[in-house]
């Protein structure tokens, strides 16, 4: 048994124990804290599996802000779970058991844990890992390949040719793209019947819509590359979902103030008197803010991204609001501003997509952001998109906190 597996088993046992405890415990505060611990343990499991981005999100969102928001919600409800007559619902138990069995049956088809021959390690990841950001080998700056240059056909392309190939592809005219797509689709239909291997072989074909060198990959962080380019629409609608959550909370909970009516001066807790908390808060908020900004803007290079960074930024503001009182937070960051910024984040994301369409590409085709150097488009577009996500997530989290605290002060 390897070390990784041993650590994983212990962690997963703890995760299972925590999950049972969350269900069993009566006190809702304890349940909220336990769910935070659950997320933290899961983050450790992800770290053990070397998936830093997922771990980061789990720790920031699950362990951090959702625990705060859950406890904020509990202020309005009750501390204890109501006692209910428990009676086994056999139908529900059967459905649950069958779903669980189906999920476990599904995992049997997965490659063995840590299998070096798993498809994920051999298919495209080695190429993606070997990439450098938007550079052509042997050329200064970012340049299109020379006229008459053709990409090589095999998968083991030396680094650099691949980039040049991707750039050449981005330079292709719309007609060529359409033609290519048409042929590609035909090819797909034909080869799908032959199964996976045939489709992989087709990847070498240059006329194919998805050639081997193409994973929209110019960005070293493969996770961001996947999230922001390969499934860019999905991430955009995730951002839209978060925005919708914030908007519906505003509609449901925000009280319309009469003109001249201000926020109450003093909040419920006497935390504003605490010298130690104030000093530590003032000491740490700048670091938290800088870390959040770093995580957002560094998302396409290292672990991180809009969701994690936005949540970290929001935590700084929520901490400020908790320690110095909500009127002070309102002075620093008015509700009107957070409302506008939440909209602007989503608009920034979709705006990048519309901009590339205006430039003649497809929606969110980053190569069209800057026609002079398409290789730069990917990092630039992802940075913009991550900022959109970050702004929306941050402001929506602050809005949720504001609404929960406002209800409390009534």
């Amino acid at each position, binding site marked *: 048994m390897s070390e990784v597996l041993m650590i994983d088993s212990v962690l997963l046992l703890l995760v299972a124990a925590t999950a049972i405890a969350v269900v069993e415990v009566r006190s809702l505060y304890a349940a909220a804290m336990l769910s935070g611990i659950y997320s933290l343990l899961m983050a450790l499991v992800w770290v053990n599996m070397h998936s830093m981005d997922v771990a980061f999100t789990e720790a920031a969102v699950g362990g951090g802000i959702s625990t705060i928001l859950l406890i904020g919600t509990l202020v309005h409800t009750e501390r204890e779970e109501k006692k209910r007559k428990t009676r086994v619902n056999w139908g529900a138990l059967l459905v649950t058991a069958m779903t669980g069995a189906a999920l476990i049956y599904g995992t049997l088809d997965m490659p063995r844990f840590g299998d070096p021959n798993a498809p994920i390690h051999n298919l495209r990841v080695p190429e993606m890992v070997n990439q450098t950001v938007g550079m052509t080998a042997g050329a200064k700056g970012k340049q299109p390949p020379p006229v008459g240059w053709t990409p090589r056909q095999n998968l083991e392309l030396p680094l650099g040719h691949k980039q040049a190939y991707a750039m050449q592809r981005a330079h292709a005219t719309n007609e060529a793209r359409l033609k290519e797509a048409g042929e590609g689709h035909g090819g797909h239909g034909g080869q799908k019947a032959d199964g996976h291997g045939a489709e992989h072989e087709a990847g070498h074909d240059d006329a194919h819509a998805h050639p081997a060198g193409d994973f929209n990959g110019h960005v070293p962080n493969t996770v961001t590359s996947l999230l922001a380019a390969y499934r860019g629409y999905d991430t955009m609608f995730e951002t839209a979902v978060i925005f919708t959550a914030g908007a519906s909370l505003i509609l449901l909970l925000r009280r319309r103030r009469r003109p001249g009516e201000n926020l109450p001066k003093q909040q419920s807790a006497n935390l504003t008197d605490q010298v*130690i*908390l104030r000093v530590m808060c003032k000491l*740490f908020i700048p670091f938290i803010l800088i870390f959040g900004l770093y995580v957002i803007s560094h998302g396409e290079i290292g672990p991180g991204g809009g969701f994690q960074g936005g949540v970290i930024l929001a935590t700084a503001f929520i901490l400020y609001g908790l320690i110095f009182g909500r009127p002070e937070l309102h002075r620093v960051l008015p509700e009107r501003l957070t409302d506008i910024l939440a909209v602007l984040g989503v608009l920034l994301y979709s705006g990048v997509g519309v901009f590339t369409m205006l430039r003649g590409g497809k929606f969110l085709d980053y190569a069209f952001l800057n026609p002079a150097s398409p290789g730069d488009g990917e990092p630039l577009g992802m940075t913009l998109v991550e900022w959109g996500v970050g702004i929306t997530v941050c402001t929506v989290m602050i809005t949720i906190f504001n609404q929960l605290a406002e209800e409390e002060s009534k």
Partner: protein
Amino acid sequence: MAWNEIVCAVLLVVGVLISLTGSLGLLRFPDFYSRLHTAGKTDSLAQLCIFVGLALIDQVTVDGVAYPVDPLIRIKLIMVALLLFFTAPTATHAITKAAMLDGVMPWKKGEPPK
């Protein structure tokens, strides 16, 4: 055995022992405040020992191959230790204050444990 490995081992043992006493105290002590006191020790002193000990290691052996440790990792470990050294006591303080404001009374000798 190099000096740094010995110091690291000693620090790790000290850290683990303090964690153990902290956990024991958390289970055995009579009331909220004294339990928090033992938990605070684990948060500040034990983590400091463990992180400083780990920062002293200069190579890691995986499957018989020794890899040198990046100095950046040591700086990060020290930074995490410093961060926790400031935030953990503050959190303990905040919890204690909140309990005090909430009217939790400290245990006195002779009373049954809460």
